[in-house]
């Protein structure tokens, strides 16, 4: 078998034991890697009802056939577990040298079980695994932890770690690696923390099995240069992802004041042009030649790496239009190991709930200093407020009552990204049917809605576009495990990815094979969800109610007087279900599951829930 090492590493923190487990070629071809491996392993090994923060939950670190091999943007890994934020399968990806080192150590994925008896670092070096005391690192932020790991193991080692947010079981704590790299929005950092696992460090020295390493090296390194050239010609990385901020402001899609507003005249103060002017350094992931991590000095003179989502949710959404202040909030999230998107939504919701009298408090939009204190409190679960904030916006809304759930900006418990869908129906659908809760990673169709169809449409073309993008973004890139940016930002052809896959594995896959695998993995995630929530209804696929509320309509600008329409959204959702072969609850039918090769998984799910 080429392209895969053929082995998983299973580590048990309770017993301090580990073993190397082989998987079959058939398994490799069916699940491929990354999200595919993670969703299947968690379905097979984590029973429904398991406490996400208990020792029975498992953390998966998963790679794919092209991960870690020099080629456009393969320096990523997937982290997954049952989510403490949403209560079902959750995952994310982040840039890290783990992608290369874990594969070179001989593993395509790592399964972490149990709970350590004291804060622990797991060190992996090829066939050797050590369980080391984390000692004084416990309680430290991620920057200090990164520095310690780099000084002890060398800057070239692969590592993942958590900050105080993960240690204190903040439900949107992420896993961090390298400079600004972070992943696992639905609380993957809290799962690490619940296991008293401070860090994973890995060094691998073996070659990754490939059918033709020389051909892949020539292809991959050549393409890295081509991607770099396109980036230089287009100038994309001058502002990286933050160029989209002014686009969102123009088309009334910017999050402002907990998504109450869609534009703001001061937004220019924190946009991509200002960020580029304030730039002090640029960072990127391994195997990347279009580096997107722009750092600035925050208010304390620290280096803070910003992207659009950080600025949209910690800046405009909180009505903070001072770039160094936004940089400071972002730095604190990175230091504590909190998801910047959920943190921005949580603070925005808190200010809005106070504003609307749902709860008492002293936090107001625009108050950067209080926002910094609240982030610290959320990361450390300080007091009643810190504990509330650490649980995410859905749980906060249920605690506050007073109909505040209507403006808690989340779907299935995961907070939305920085795109305001007050009147962007297709993107609202993308959030609604994202298989892990609201996430822009799965599909982003705003430009399509404005340029290639009509914004007012709730037609089948929008459902079709969401599915097309889910197969690419949430599917292929998440199971081959590579960054989607060369394709989405620079137009790097999708045809390159089967080419890389085939050159490494010796197989002859087409993009259609990729889409079929993607559909299987989405089906797998839906079964993970169904088993946890057997009474689910299609209402779970609706975005926040405030986007349907006419009293929340803009009073001026491009979408004045307009909000999403409930009946029409429901119709568009049905288009999505019909095209996917899902039933009226949004669950794949038995026939669909069978066509995807998921008969055994369907039979298992039927022990807990009904399939139609």
């Amino acid at each position, binding site marked *: 078998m080429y392209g895969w090492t053929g082995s998983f590493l299973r580590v048990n923190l309770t017993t301090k034991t580990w073993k190397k487990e082989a998987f079959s070629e058939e398994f490799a071809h069916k699940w491929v890697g990354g999200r595919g491996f993670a969703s299947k392993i968690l379905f097979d090994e984590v029973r429904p009802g398991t406490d996400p923060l208990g020792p029975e939950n498992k953390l998966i670190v998963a790679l794919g056939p092209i991960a870690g091999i020099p080629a456009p943007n393969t320096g990523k890994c997937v982290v997954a577990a049952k989510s403490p934020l949403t209560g079902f399968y959750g995952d994310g990806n982040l840039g890290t040298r783990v992608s290369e080192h874990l594969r070179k150590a001989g593993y395509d994925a790592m399964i972490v079980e149990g709970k350590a008896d004291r804060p622990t670092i797991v060190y992996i070096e090829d066939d050797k695994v050590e369980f080391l005391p984390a000692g004084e690192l416990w309680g430290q932020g991620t920057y200090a932890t990164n520095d310690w790991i780099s000084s002890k193991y060398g800057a070239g080692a692969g590592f993942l770690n958590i900050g105080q947010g993960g240690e204190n079981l903040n439900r949107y704590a992420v896993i961090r690696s390298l400079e600004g790299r972070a992943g696992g929005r639905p609380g993957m950092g809290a799962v690490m923390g619940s296991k008293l696992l401070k860090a994973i460090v890995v060094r691998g020295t073996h070659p990754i099995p490939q059918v033709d390493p020389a051909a892949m090296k020539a292809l991959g390194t050549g393409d890295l240069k081509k991607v770099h050239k396109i980036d230089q010609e*287009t100038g994309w990385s*001058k502002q990286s992802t933050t160029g989209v901020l002014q*686009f969102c402001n123009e088309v009334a899609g910017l999050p402002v004041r907990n998504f109450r507003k869609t534009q703001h005249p001061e937004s220019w103060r924190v946009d991509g042009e200002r960020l580029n002017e304030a730039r002090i350094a640029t960072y990127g992931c391994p195997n990347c030649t279009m580096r997107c991590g722009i750092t600035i000095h925050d208010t304390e003179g620290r280096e803070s790496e910003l992207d659009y989502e950080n600025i949209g949710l910690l800046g405009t959404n909180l009505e903070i239009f001072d770039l160094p202040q936004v940089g400071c909030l972002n730095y604190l999230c990175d230091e504590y190991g909190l998801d910047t998107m959920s943190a921005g939504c949580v603070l925005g919701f808190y200010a809005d709930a106070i504003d609307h009298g749902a709860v008492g408090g002293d936090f107001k939009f625009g108050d950067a200093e209080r926002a910094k204190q609240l982030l610290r409190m959320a990361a450390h679960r300080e007091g009643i407020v810190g504990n509330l904030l650490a649980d995410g916006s859905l749980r906060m809304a249920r605690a506050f009552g007073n109909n505040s759930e209507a403006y808690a900006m989340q779907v299935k418990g995961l907070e939305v*990204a920085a795109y305001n869908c007050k009147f962007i129906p297709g993107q609202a659908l993308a959030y609604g049917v994202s298989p892990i809760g609201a996430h822009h990673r799965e599909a982003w169709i705003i*430009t399509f809605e*404005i340029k290639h169809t009509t914004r007012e449409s709730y037609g089948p073309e929008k459902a079709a576009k969401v599915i097309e993008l889910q197969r690419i973004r949430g599917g292929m890139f998440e199971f081959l495990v590579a960054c989607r*940016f060369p394709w989405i930002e620079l137009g790097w052809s999708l045809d390159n990815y089967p080419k890389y896959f085939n050159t490494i594995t010796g197989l002859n896959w087409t993009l259609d094979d990729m889409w079929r695998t993607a559909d299987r993995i989405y089906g797998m995630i839906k079964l993970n969800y169904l088993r946890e929530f057997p009474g689910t209804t299609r209402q779970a696929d609706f975005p926040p109610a405030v986007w349907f509320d006419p009293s929340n309509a803009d009073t001026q600008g*491009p979408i004045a007087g307009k909000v999403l329409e409930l009946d029409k959204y429901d119709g568009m959702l049905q288009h999505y279900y019909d095209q996917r072969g899902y039933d009226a609850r949004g669950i794949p039918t038995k026939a669909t599951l069978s066509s995807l090769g998921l008969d055994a998984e369907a039979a298992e799910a039927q022990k807990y829930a009904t399939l139609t």
Partner: protein
Amino acid sequence: MKIGVKLIGPLMYEAGFSEKEIEVPDATTTDALLDRIMISKTRPKIVTRNGKAVAPDDVLKDGDKIAVSPIYSGG
């Protein structure tokens, strides 16, 4: 007539400005405006007026505010 033009993202570096008012003849189309500000025709882009897309042959009116953006894909 005068048209307000805002360039988004890397387009501002290509054209050399981010926002300004431009004097153009009456009945100028979107495409002609882009020629005027020297943004490559082959570069994928979206042009909006008051948040709505305009076509290359749409005729502009005095006082229009036009935004020109690369095709973003949401990160």
